[in-house]
């Protein structure tokens, strides 16, 4: 795996840190280990695709505290909880807090690796979405107030003429404004403009929109 990913391991037991490092190095996964949650919070790089393998029993801030803290900070890094002795309540609680997996020590390497790969895949998607969202937001921010007004009306389905009469300028002026806005947003057609706005608004509300038309296409394929 040559891509720039990182597996963070937080465990207060030196032997565990060392053995997990050996295991992950053996399958060529870059790994960084930390003895305490605070060390991790100070050192981790939020821009890298990665995941966190976290022991819930630790002195000072416990793994559960760290998980809570990461939710508050909206880190979004996928977390795999490991524990030396877990109970069902502990597992339920950590999953509810967004852990993607709960492993009890001692675990088989494959179980950990499976969890890590799933976590990395999730984080890769999360990073991609974040990148897209940032890009959309970036482009949208270049629009002037008047251009945003026109875009909003176009998306609602108003014709140039209707927009012109509402805004009180000529249809030609609206035409030019719309072309400028679509140029700034990087879209060529009205459907593309609609998709852009839909995506942008979804991101702002914290949702993720799948590629448009995917569901329909899949439906058609199944019909055949």
């Amino acid at each position, binding site marked *: 795996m040559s891509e720039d990913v990182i597996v963070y391991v937080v465990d207060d*037991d030196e*032997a*565990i840190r*060392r*053995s*997990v490092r*050996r*295991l992950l*190095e*053996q*399958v060529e996964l870059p790994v960084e280990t930390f003895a305490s949650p605070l060390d991790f919070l100070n050192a981790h790089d939020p821009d890298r695709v990665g995941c966190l393998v976290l022991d819930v*029993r*630790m*002195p*000072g801030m*416990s793994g559960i505290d760290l998980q809570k803290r990461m939710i508050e900070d909206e880190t979004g890094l996928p977390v795999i909880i*490991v*524990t*030396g*002795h877990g109970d069902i309540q502990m597992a339920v609680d950590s999953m509810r807090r967004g852990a993607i997996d709960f492993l*009890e*020590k*001692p*675990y*088989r*390497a*494959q179980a950990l690796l499976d969890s890590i790969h799933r976590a990395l895949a999730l984080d890769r998607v999360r990073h991609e979405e974040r990148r897209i969202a940032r890009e959309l937001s970036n482009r949208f921010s270049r629009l002037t107030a008047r251009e945003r007004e026109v875009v909003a009306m176009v998306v609602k389905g108003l014709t140039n003429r209707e927009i012109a009469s509402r805004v009180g300028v000529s249809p030609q002026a609206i035409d030019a404004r719309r072309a400028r806005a679509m140029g700034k947003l990087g879209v060529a057609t009205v459907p593309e403009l609609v998709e852009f706005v839909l995506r942008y608004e979804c991101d702002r509300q914290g949702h993720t929109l799948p590629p448009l038309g995917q569901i329909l296409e899949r439906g058609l394929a199944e019909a055949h």
Partner: protein
Amino acid sequence: MSFPFPREPGGVPEILGSIFENLPSMVFVKDAALLRFVTVNRAAEELLGFSREELIGKSDHDFFPADQADGFTARDRAVLMSGREVDIAEETILTRHRGVRVLHTKKVPLLGADGAPKFLLGISEDITELKDVERRLRESEHQLRRLLEAIPDLIFRIDRGGRFLSFVPARGMRTLAPESEFIGKTFADVMPPELSRMAGDAFERALSSGEAQVIEYDLVEGGKRRYYEARIVPVGTDDFISIVRDVSDRRRAEEAARERERQLSHAGRISTMGEMATSIAHELNQPLAAILNHAEACTFAIQDGRARPESLLEDLQAIVAQAERATRIVRHVRNFVRKGDRDTAVVNLNELVETTLGFLSFEASRAGVSIETELPSNPIPVYGDPIELQQVVLNLVRNGIEAIAGWNSGGERTLRVATRIDGCPKGGSENEWGALSVSNPGPALTTEAVSEFLEPYFTTKPDGLGLGLSISRSIVEGVGGNLEGCANPDGGVTFQVWIPIANKENPHE
């Protein structure tokens, strides 16, 4: 019917008459034919309550109830018939003024010149008072004996040569030999040699000191061991009393109490174990997880054909180290639950505290309590059973954790555990004690409230037995140490333990 003693002044009969008159015993003479009084002395007048004028010429039937008079008359006749004197050791008589009296009477037939009985001489001593004293003496003797018999102890009187003189039995206690076989014999004759020697020594000591000596011994009787306590008390100059008590029941009760204590302490360990199971599982799973990780790293490397010997070696060495770690944990746990005799050894207090805190780290972090330790780098050697001492540390630290967990103040949640070499408040010079203090923050308490914590069955926990601290205290006191609790000036409690330092010079203290 003439007066038997002629009254001739100055003559011998005159003297006899005077003696007769003044004898303190009642003397009377009756004629043999009709048994009528012929003469009586003054003592008779006083005893019977009639004057001689009233008596003379009358018979018993004139003064006494018929059945009594019949008895006297019958006896008189028997004496006269036999012609020999008769001694009546005891007869009762109802007198006119003095009520019932008890008499010792001698009746003698006086013969005439023809050899036939002519008179009956009676001499009666009033033994009523004597009889009364005798009776009371007998009663008191009887009571004394009853009392001695009621004492559940065997009592021997023994002379200074160790010879048994007499003995009072006790119910339910047997002597080594039947009474008839040991009275007059010495210790060596009836006792087993060792006991005989022991008793002999105690006698020597009692003799030279003049003070009571106590010896304890046991004997196997009918296949059962019984325990005795003998108290040897000098009495007078030459005799001794030995009071032997069967103390088997007391000994057994003591034995049972000790056994209960051992069981309780074992139960304490077991319940502690139950509570610690989570912690132990965690402790064991750590090295197991590390072992699996290293082993699988090796497996992957070999499967991929990229295994380098030096890399494999590193993993294998880590596996060995972690397997040893797991073994140590298992050994600790096994030692901890082991019952059986106390195993005294020199223990490094610091190491003991560190190991025990390892057991409790999970519990502490789950309760949100951090433990701060202050352990000097030099070892503190103390003498005791490592497992028992570990239990003391465990109890104190767990109490501290639970106290902080149950204290919702939002304040500091740090338990402080420290060891040092120290003097002890109960006396003893500096540098003689290994001291451990466990201090938790908490609400302000009075010293009295804290001392209550050390009482058995005192607990603030709904599921607590309240035995942790009291067991700890008996363990610490068992090695000659001391456990105290005191309220912190700024709230919370500090428990302190002092255990004698194990020196090279006196390894048993």
